[in-house]
């Protein structure tokens, strides 16, 4: 999971941070244009940029985390996360002890319905 998250964050920083800033800027300007009609509201534009980064960043992080988690599950199912078992010759196991004689219980046999 954490590896996937890290990959997601790195992919976002390298491939999508700039587009996210640009998309956010565009969204901020559009919203600002609808509110102020012809004027740019700096706070709204900044808010748009922030949303662009958070939104697209979230997408990358979540995709990375979900894929990482899925990959982790597959690795676990395949047993690749367990250390290799080395076959070491073992001495023969002692014979099992003889079963003890059943103790009679008053009122019937144990387990009998």
């Amino acid at each position, binding site marked *: 999971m954490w590896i996937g998250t890290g990959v997601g964050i790195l992919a976002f920083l390298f491939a999508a941070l700039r587009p996210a800033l640009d998309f956010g800027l*565009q969204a901020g300007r559009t919203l600002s244009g609808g509110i102020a009609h012809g004027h740019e509201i700096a706070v709204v534009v900044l808010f748009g940029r922030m*949303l662009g980064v958070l939104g697209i960043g979230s997408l990358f992080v979540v995709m990375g985390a979900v894929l990482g988690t899925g990959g982790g599950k597959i690795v676990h199912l395949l047993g690749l996360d367990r250390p290799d078992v080395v076959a070491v010759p073992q001495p023969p196991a002692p014979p099992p002890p003889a079963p003890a004689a059943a103790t009679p219980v008053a009122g019937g046999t144990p387990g009998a319905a």
Partner: protein
Amino acid sequence: MRLHLMFLGAGLLALAPAARGADYKAPHPPDGNRSCLVCHQGEAFGVEKISGSVHKDLSCTDCHEGYEWRAHEAQEPELSADQVALVEKLRTRSEVPRALLACGNCHSEEADTLGKSLHTRWLREERPVPGPTCISCHEDPHGIRRVAETPAAKRLLSSRCQRCHEDPALVAKAGLSAEPMNFRDSLHGRLVTLGSDRAPGCFDCHTNHAVQDPASAGAPVAAGNKVRTCRRCHDGATQSFADAFTHRPLTREAQPAPYWVHTFFSWLTTLTLFALFMHVLLDLGAEIRRWWRRRKEDEAPVPAGVPHDVVRFDLHQRIQHWMLIASVVALTLSGWPIRAAALSSSGSLMQMLGGLEGAALLHRVCAALMGAAAVYHLVYLTQRLVQRRLVLKMVPSPRDVTDLAHNLAFLAGLRPDRPKFDKFSYMEKFDYWAVFWGVAIMGGTGLVRWFPVAFSHVLPGWVLYATQLAHGEEATLAASALFVWHFYNVHLRPSIFPMNWVWLTGRMSAESLREEHGQEYDDLVAKSAKRDPAP
């Protein structure tokens, strides 16, 4: 062909050749252009530049007429009074105004057409802004290249129109309109920017050399001709359809309904996203506080007899959710590049999706998938209603308001515990009803955008235009809310990262239920105690 002609065209100088006759031949200096290039080197007219140009076979003196070998002992041809006046006018815009007259020597047809155009009228008459010359659109004649009918050429040529018609200072000085045109933000403009070979550039509707005042009867975009012009690409286009497309600035006076749609969605989006963002921030603060204090009281064991987990999503609901996830993410990815077409990253994303055609196909397929999910959900609800199994716990109630106030106080650190939410908290109800609203708006407006000609038979033009605005702006709201708000609540919140597994398993553990839906958990415990009373 039109595009080709535009590049060949040039013409103002229609004025020039007529006076000379067809057999006129400008004298050439000995040794051709090399004589001139001995001195005239540099970026403006280097050998490389000229040799790559469509004018490479011309002699310098074909345009700079009258020059001989001896440096600038020019005997320039006689000009008419009109031409002299024009050259004087052009002197402020070019160091060699007489050379501008030479375009018409070869491009006489284009020059004739241009001579009757609105652009030339502005050049000849006394206007607040002089009209364009050939090089205003075709740029440097020394390096001019033949441009094929490619999307890139269309984009380039349209950008040259926009250079003047979208320049606020020039438009204001010329008195063309209250505000500059906005072709690049129109649907056609965005498609041209993204490299569509089908979307029209400026000259496809307005023509190039023959451009007329849009208000004049002969202009292709005049009121009486606009429908015919639209039908060249859109079979069956109606007057409503023609009215819907504009690249005039959106003003309250000219287009009141679309103006108010734009205003409404801008306020709605900004305020909603601001509220959601603040909620996320407060929640994150509360999560950090909780982690810091490492509170243990919530870790008491679940009483015996209470189920280990409960069903929150049945299989139908999970399938509906999966359909919605796939469709909304793909719709956002394939639609957003058109919304932000001017960005270079939009072009790259569009290429990754298979170009405009690929993205358009993906967008429509996913729209159909989203519609199918909506129908599936309505059928599911109807079936539950018929079977009397429909639980109306998703309907907003007054308790949600008190829960909201209580939760905000908790998130702000003013109350020690979060409210005990019932089966669905106000946040989940918001998500659910926001999807209802979003699917209705996006689906309804998207359907109109998908079949604009058909809808233009029953809807007025301003409705068609308003649907375009609403579709894009609701998309901004929906995508931002999804990726910032919903993703935080179900994925990124530290206590549940990487995800709330309910969307896959459909089940929630009793511990999580106690934490997130305290009222439902208490009801479950009470029910268990009633069923299996303690000895």
